[in-house]
C-alpha cells in the first residue's frame, strides 16, 4: 500500500500541466511583423547534411526535419520573417515566436505558450526584461538574456530564461544557415 501511495505521488509530480497561451499567435505576428499584410510560408525539408550542419552549430536539429519561416510583406516589400520555436523541458513545452528584421537581426521575441506550472516563472523572467535583451541582436551572437536577468529573479525563472535563450539560439542558427 505504501508503494502504491508513493507511486501515485510520484506520478502526480511527474505529470506535465496543461499548456496555456501567454500571447496569441496572431498578436505575436502583429508585433513581430508590424505592418505586414501579405504572408508566405517558407518550408524547408532539411537534407541530412543540413540537419548535421545545424546540429554541429547549436546541438539541436528540428525534430521533424522541417524548418518553417513565415515571411511578412507590405506592398511587396519584405517586412521581416518569423519562426515559431518549441523548447521542451521536464516541466513541459515552451513556444516562442522569434521575429527577424529584413537585415537579419532579431526584431523581437515573444513567449507564446507555456504550461500552467511554468507560466509564473516565465512571467517573472519576462517582467525582469528578458526579451529586451534580444532586440537588435545579430543572428551570429549568442543570446545572453538569461545572464542579464538572473541576478534579479528566482532560480526557476532563471531556468526558464536559459530555455528561452536556447530557443532563440536555435532560431538564430536556422535563420543564419537556411533562410537565404
Amino acid at each position, binding site marked *: 500500500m505504501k508503494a*502504491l501511495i508513493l507511486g501515485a505521488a510520484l506520478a502526480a509530480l511527474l505529470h506535465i500541466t496543461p499548456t496555456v497561451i501567454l500571447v496569441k499567435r496572431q498578436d505575436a505576428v502583429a508585433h513581430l511583423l508590424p505592418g505586414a499584410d501579405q*504572408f*508566405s*510560408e517558407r*518550408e524547408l*525539408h532539411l537534407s541530412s547534411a543540413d540537419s548535421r550542419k545545424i546540429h554541429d552549430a547549436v546541438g539541436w536539429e528540428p525534430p*521533424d526535419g522541417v524548418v518553417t519561416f513565415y515571411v511578412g510583406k507590405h506592398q511587396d516589400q519584405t517586412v521581416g520573417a518569423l519562426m515559431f520555436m518549441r523548447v*521542451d523541458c521536464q516541466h513541459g*513545452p515552451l513556444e516562442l515566436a522569434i521575429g527577424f528584421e529584413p537585415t537579419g537581426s532579431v526584431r523581437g521575441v515573444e513567449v507564446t505558450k507555456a504550461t500552467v506550472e511554468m507560466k509564473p516563472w516565465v512571467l517573472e523572467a519576462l517582467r525582469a526584461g528578458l526579451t529586451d535583451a534580444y532586440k537588435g541582436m545579430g543572428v551570429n551572437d549568442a543570446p545572453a538574456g538569461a545572464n542579464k536577468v538572473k541576478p534579479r529573479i528566482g532560480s526557476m525563472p532563471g531556468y526558464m530564461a536559459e530555455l528561452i535563450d536556447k530557443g532563440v539560439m536555435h532560431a538564430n542558427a536556422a535563420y543564419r544557415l537556411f533562410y537565404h
Partner: protein
Amino acid sequence: MLYDLRHSDLRVRWLVTLLLATLGTSYLFGAWMVGLYAGFSPKRVAQTYGPNGELMTMQMPPETTMVTERPVAMGEMVEEQHHVDLNLLVQDTHVHMPMYAVIAAALAVITLGLSLSRSLSLAIITLLFAAPWLDFAGMWLTKLVSPGFAIVTLAGGWAMALGYTIVAAIAIWQMWLGRKTAP
C-alpha cells in the same frame, strides 16, 4: 476474493466510492480532451500521432534541402493542428504511463474486493492494464509503422472506459445497492 468490499467498514466503502467518482470525473474530462485534441475517429487519431513528415524525413531525408514557399493567410499562420511529434510522444509516454499504472492498480485493488469468480477478476485486471498498453502501443505503431494502427489507440481508450465502467458498476452495486448475504 482477498477482502470483501461488500461487507467492509462504511469508511472503506465511502473511500472507494469517492475514488471511483473522482476517477470517473477525470475520465469524462479525459474524453473531452481527447475530443478536442485527437478526436475519436481513426483518421483524426492518425493525423495527431502519425508521422506528419518527420519519420519520412528521418528515414529518407532529401538529397538536398527542399524549399517550398506558398502564400498563406493570417488564419493559417495562427491556426495550429495539434500534432504529437516523436519527442512529445516520448515525453507523453514517460509521464502518462506511471499515472495509468497507478489508476489501473487502484481499480484492480477494488476488483480484488468484489465478489467475483477468480477468472472474471483476472479478466478485469488484465483489461485494466491492457488498456493503457493498447493506448500507447497504438500511438507508437501509428507513429513508427502505419497510420492504420490508430485503431489500436482507439481500442485502448474504449478499453479504459469499459474497464472503469465494469469495476465502478459492480463495486457500487455490491457496496450500496445489492442484497448483502452473510460473509
